[in-house]
């Protein structure tokens, strides 16, 4: 009677361990253009499968359209840019292994991609060890600044600095922060506290919950008890949807409560637009931007991939980010160290801003931020925050 259960305990433990450590990493190949001599070769590490596969796929699509645009214009040094895409399934162990393979076997000169912080950290180590520039496109702050790592996504400071004062002014000074239980939401909350206090407000509640939570009632009860005016949420993944829905069902998420954070991202729009329509969201890029380059990208993205939902911001960051990298490579050639130096000093014009460049002491892109209003159809840019600087020095650079 008992033995099948006991055996099951062992098997479940082993299988869950195997599943969570990800034996699912796989490599795909992809390349474009002709091969004449020594073209620039880029290695792309993205999660195309698993829980964050949708964000990884959006990044890949933005990247590919960006490379295609440069190749259509003649490529780099008269040669078309090549790339190899690998699927790390969002697992840092896979990311390390695949990044090493891209560097050692495929001889790439640049690494690009990753969605989560831990996979970025894994690829960042490989890029540092091999002195190959590595560029990410997702928002957030790397834990450590690395000489060969650069990020096109907005930093937490760039995200909160323009929007938080507006929320405090419109809704009130009592701020609550809720997040999934891992490093980034805590970092986000730390900065939210700093900026709230600087704006004359108070953080009245701070809650974290392990990823995979199905019932948010206890957390919502505590948040409601704190009576906040503004709720900042860094609950991510499927939890963002469960939390937001339950927050609305329990009467926490009302039109009178200011709401900003991850659930307002374009990735969640198909599921949460009924709850987020009319709200404002700070973005670096949105598919509702009206400049010609963004319009062209949106049109290409939709027609190439038959995509009708809002285009995730990470796709836009990847599209314009890779053009920044290729502009640097056009000046530096194929030598990774030279490309890295050029990335550090280049000033590049794109819809992300005029003269966008990386700060030397933190490797964060100094670019513009926008205020997007969410509608059932997508994200309309209703105000321009202008360039939002983040030049706070970080260890390692």
């Amino acid at each position, binding site marked *: *009677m*008992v033995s*099948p*259960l006991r*055996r*099951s*305990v062992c*098997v*479940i433990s082993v*299988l*869950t361990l195997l599943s969570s450590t990800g034996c699912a990493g796989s490599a795909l190949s992809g390349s474009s253009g002709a091969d004449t001599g020594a073209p620039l070769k880029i290695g792309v590490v993205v999660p195309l*499968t*698993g*829980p*964050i*596969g*949708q964000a990884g796929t959006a990044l890949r699509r933005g990247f590919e359209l960006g490379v295609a645009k440069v190749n259509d214009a003649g490529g780099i040094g008269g040669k078309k840019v090549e790339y190899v895409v690998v699927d790390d399934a969002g697992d840092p162990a896979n990311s390390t292994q695949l990044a090493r393979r891209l560097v050692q076997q495929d001889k790439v000169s640049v690494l690009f991609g990753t969605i989560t912080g831990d996979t970025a950290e894994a690829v960042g180590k490989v890029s540092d060890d091999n002195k190959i520039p590595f560029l990410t496109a997702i928002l957030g702050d790397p834990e450590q600044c690395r000489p060969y790592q650069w990020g096109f996504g907005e930093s937490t400071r760039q995200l909160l600095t323009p929007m938080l004062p507006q929320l405090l002014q419109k809704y009130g000074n009592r701020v609550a922060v809720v997040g999934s*239980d891992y490093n980034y939401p805590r970092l986000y909350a730390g900065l939210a506290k700093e900026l709230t206090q600087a704006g004359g407000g108070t953080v009245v509640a701070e*809650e*974290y*919950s*392990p990823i*995979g*939570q*199905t*019932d948010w*009632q*206890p*957390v919502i*009860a505590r948040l409601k008890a704190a009576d906040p005016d503004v709720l900042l949420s860094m609950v991510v*993944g*499927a*939890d*963002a*949807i*469960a939390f937001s*829905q*339950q927050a609305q*069902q*329990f*009467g926490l998420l009302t039109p009178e409560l200011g709401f900003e954070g991850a659930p307002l991202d374009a*990735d*969640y729009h*198909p*599921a*949460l637009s*009924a709850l987020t329509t009319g709200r404002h969201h700070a973005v670096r890029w949105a598919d509702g931007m009206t400049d010609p380059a963004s319009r062209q990208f949106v049109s290409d993205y939709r027609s190439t991939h038959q995509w009708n939902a809002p285009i995730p911001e990470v796709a836009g960051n990847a599209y314009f980010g890779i053009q920044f990298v290729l502009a640097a490579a056009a000046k530096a050639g194929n030598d990774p160290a030279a490309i890295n130096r050029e990335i550090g000093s280049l000033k590049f014009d794109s819809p992300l801003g005029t003269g966008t460049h990386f700060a030397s002491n933190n490797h964060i892109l100094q670019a513009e931020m926008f205020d997007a209003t969410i509608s059932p159809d997508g994200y309309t840019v209703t105000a321009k925050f202008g360039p939002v600087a983040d030049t706070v020095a970080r260890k390692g650079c």
Partner: protein
Amino acid sequence: MDVLLAILSQFGLFGLLTVGIAIVFAALRVVNLAHCDFAMLGAYAAATLTGMPFGWRVVAVLATTIPLLVLVERLLRRSFADGLGALLVTWGVGMALRQIAEVTFGATPRAVAAPISGSVAVFGAQGPAYRLVCSLVAVTVVGLVLVVAYRTRWGLTLRAVADNPAMAGLLGTDPNRLRTTAFVAGGLLAVLAGALYSPTLAVSPSTGFSLLVPTFFALLFSRPGSLATAALAALGVSALAVLLRTWLSDVVADALFYVVVIGIAAARSRPTIRRLVTWSRRFAVRSA
């Protein structure tokens, strides 16, 4: 009262899942690791069949899942002799279901609008109306399953097969037929759980997988073949999770939940405790 409603809600979900997996374990002696992935099928049906009313979506997915459940049971039948092999087959079926869902619907989580909006007050505690309705429906279904298990001939046969399959076979029970029926019934409870609770969850390929661990713990604490203890264990696991998360922060509560559950499992395996449990059971039977 808020806490009681939260326990009721969690018990509705895990009660359906645990009683379902316990029925399958009773008849097949296999822990069906794909069990909660059947809940994911129910949730996706609620999320995608939006052209019809919510109730009909539930009925439709229950009806259309039956052939799949029969097919999986037939697949398992080949590996009954090897318990470990059957367990691995169920793990593979679960992985296949998640992959098929990801390919078909994408990895982006979906939301399901609750068929009943608004809130209700129960003894002064305000809560979402749908949450209360689906909890009551789920608990009622669990109750009906227990009535069937303990008050009908089919339930008697199921318990007989769970206790001694060889003897039940000698007395005229067709074990294959019973196993198929039990697997389908258990699977349908999971599908129902997923469909009913979909408006409170995010619907994604891993929706069911994230429910597996608490369901498995509840099964671990139940007596094999006893659906009543499975329901009680589900109630215990739900209450423990809700109470810890009410008193402590989620992070601490989550860690403590596993400590308590593993502690109970370890204590139960001690010979002294096992003997105590056996004696108390005999005493309870004599008293009754």
